[in-house]
């Protein structure tokens, strides 16, 4: 892992930033679950490492036990978006640590491992075991799932989120990122609760809950029944939530949701994101992350990113877009 080596972009400009103290060669991450660097290396070979599209690699979310994922079909194309019901297929903690992590450590960028648990004990075990590995720089908690003990969706409820983070914070030496769910009334309140409980950063948005029907049978198309919406279709929603959250916390915000260009990335940073992540756009172009990073660096006005990383950048207009998460009176 040598985050410094390819730090100079095509223009030779220094794009390096730090996220929770972890130095990155630039501000572009992948969204968890939207890039499998191991599979991509099978398709693209070592050229992938030489021209690696991201500055920090986030693993697909892993769970304690292995999961097959949801039955197919898992994908549905929407206007300017994608609905998926992948269902978190993964090798489970043991399989991940034994098989995947050593391969991911070969990537030229630092690593963040995304974890999800269905009980607080599961989460604790995941975080402790991942934290023990040197290959890992950050840990991301994906809390977009129901807590099977309380029935509440962890990430939709400020108290539930705070309780989970509080315990994990003590178990873990690495920076802890909490990935918020957008399917909440007040993401800013959840983010503030996470910060209060010791989270080092928050990331958002995850996918919006959505559904599609089979064009002929009118039964749910997706094997999982409903799914999560991503892509440009949700960009305006994501940008609003990023601004609202950035206005509510002083830890760094990792912004994502439909980012497809350097201009989009600059907008998320203007809304208060310290760094940004690219998800669905990578499906259209595996090099999207690199292109977006280059475009962003080429924009004069996006702010260097540097001064934004160890604290919150100001939200564009506190009184208007970023305060209470009330509905627009349209």
């Amino acid at each position, binding site marked *: 892992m040598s985050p410094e080596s390819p730090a100079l972009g095509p223009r030779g400009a220094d794009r390096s930033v730090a996220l929770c103290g972890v130095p990155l060669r630039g501000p572009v991450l992948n969204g968890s*679950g*939207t*890039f*499998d660097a*191991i*599979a*991509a290396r*099978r*398709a*693209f*070979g070592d*050229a*992938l490492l030489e*021209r690696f*599209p991201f500055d920090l690699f986030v693993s*697909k979310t892993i769970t304690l036990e292995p999961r*097959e*994922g949801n*039955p*197919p*079909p*898992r*994908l549905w*194309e*929407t*206007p*300017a*978006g*994608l609905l*998926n019901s*992948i269902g978190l*297929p993964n090798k489970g903690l043991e399989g991940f640590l034994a098989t995947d992590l050593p391969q991911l450590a070969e990537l030229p960028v630092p690593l963040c491992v995304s974890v999800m648990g269905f009980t607080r004990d599961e989460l604790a075990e995941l975080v402790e075991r991942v934290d023990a590995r040197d290959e890992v720089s950050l840990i991301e908690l994906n809390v977009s799932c129901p807590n099977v003990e309380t029935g509440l969706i962890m990430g939709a409820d400020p108290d539930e989120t705070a309780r989970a983070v509080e315990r994990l914070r003590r178990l873990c030496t690495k920076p802890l990122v909490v990935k918020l769910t957008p399917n909440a009334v007040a993401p800013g309140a959840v983010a503030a609760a996470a910060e209060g409980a010791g989270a080092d950063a928050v990331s958002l948005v995850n996918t919006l809950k959505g559904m599609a029907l*089979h*064009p*002929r049978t009118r039964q749910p*198309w997706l*094997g999982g029944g409903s799914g999560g919406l991503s*892509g*440009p279709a949700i960009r305006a929603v994501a940008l609003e939530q990023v601004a609202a959250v950035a206005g509510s916390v002083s830890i760094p915000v990792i912004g994502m949701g439909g980012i497809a260009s350097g201009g989009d990335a600059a907008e998320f940073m203007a809304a208060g994101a310290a760094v940004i992540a690219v998800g*669905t756009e*990578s*499906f*259209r*172009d*595996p*090099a999207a992350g*690199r*292109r977006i990073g280059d475009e962003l660096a080429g924009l004069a006005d996006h702010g260097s990113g540097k001064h934004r990383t160890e604290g919150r950048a100001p939200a564009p207009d506190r009184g208007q877009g970023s305060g209470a998460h009330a509905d627009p009176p349209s």
Partner: protein
Amino acid sequence: MTEARTLAPPERRLAEVLESRRVGAYTLITAADAGGPADPRPGQFYMLATGAQWGGGSTERPYLPRAFSFARARPRPGGGADLDFLLEDVGPGTHRLGLLGAGEPLALVGPLGAGFGPAAGDRQPVLVGGGIGTAPLLCLHDELIEVGAAPTVILGFRSGAHAEAVALFEREVTLSTDDGSAGRPGLVTEPLRERLEGGPPATVYACGPPPMLEAVRALCAEQAVPAQLALESGMACGFGACFGCVVPTREGYIRVCVDGPVVEGARLRSALVAGGGDQG
């Protein structure tokens, strides 16, 4: 089976459409892919989109690129390859690609996936295609002829207009159509059974609609003939990123785009997979 996988450049690039012409019910697009490898393996595929105005139809789709087997590849003098794609207009993506004219940009990522492997031992190659599933068999047929093999080609189509794709093959083709308007009426499994029961030991290479693939798989299993089946599945990325294109196998789900599209028949309980062409 050794893996037939030519690596792809890790980015989307633009090729130039050289020609687009009708072949019966299909469209054959030829594009100059100067930035890609000269030697994709038969059975591999590319993710395609138009370079401009992709999307924005009445349904605001397509948004994502679409997967297409290359039908033929000819190395270009300056590097890269001229690629042929055979397209069937079944929805907004294939429709839009069919509107491309010479000189227009075609965006692509590829070649992707694992293609067809060599035949086991000295078994004779038997190529079985249904409809647009003919496409990846074309380059396989070319390659087998080049190495001196004498592939048997058995193709089935919906109608005579679709069957015009047969003209693309050098070898004689055993043709059947659903409506009997060209070749013999009926399914490809009948001539295939005759060939497997009556001829020398074979390896079957098949591509086509799920019911046909499943019939071929079951027949090969019954006859203990190795089969390499090129599967289809709805895809978002084509390079293993989204975990969206899975199909069930005896060992669990596999991703068609990186673990396939060519899969040994013995790995499948059924080739009638959800997420394939039977979903529409």
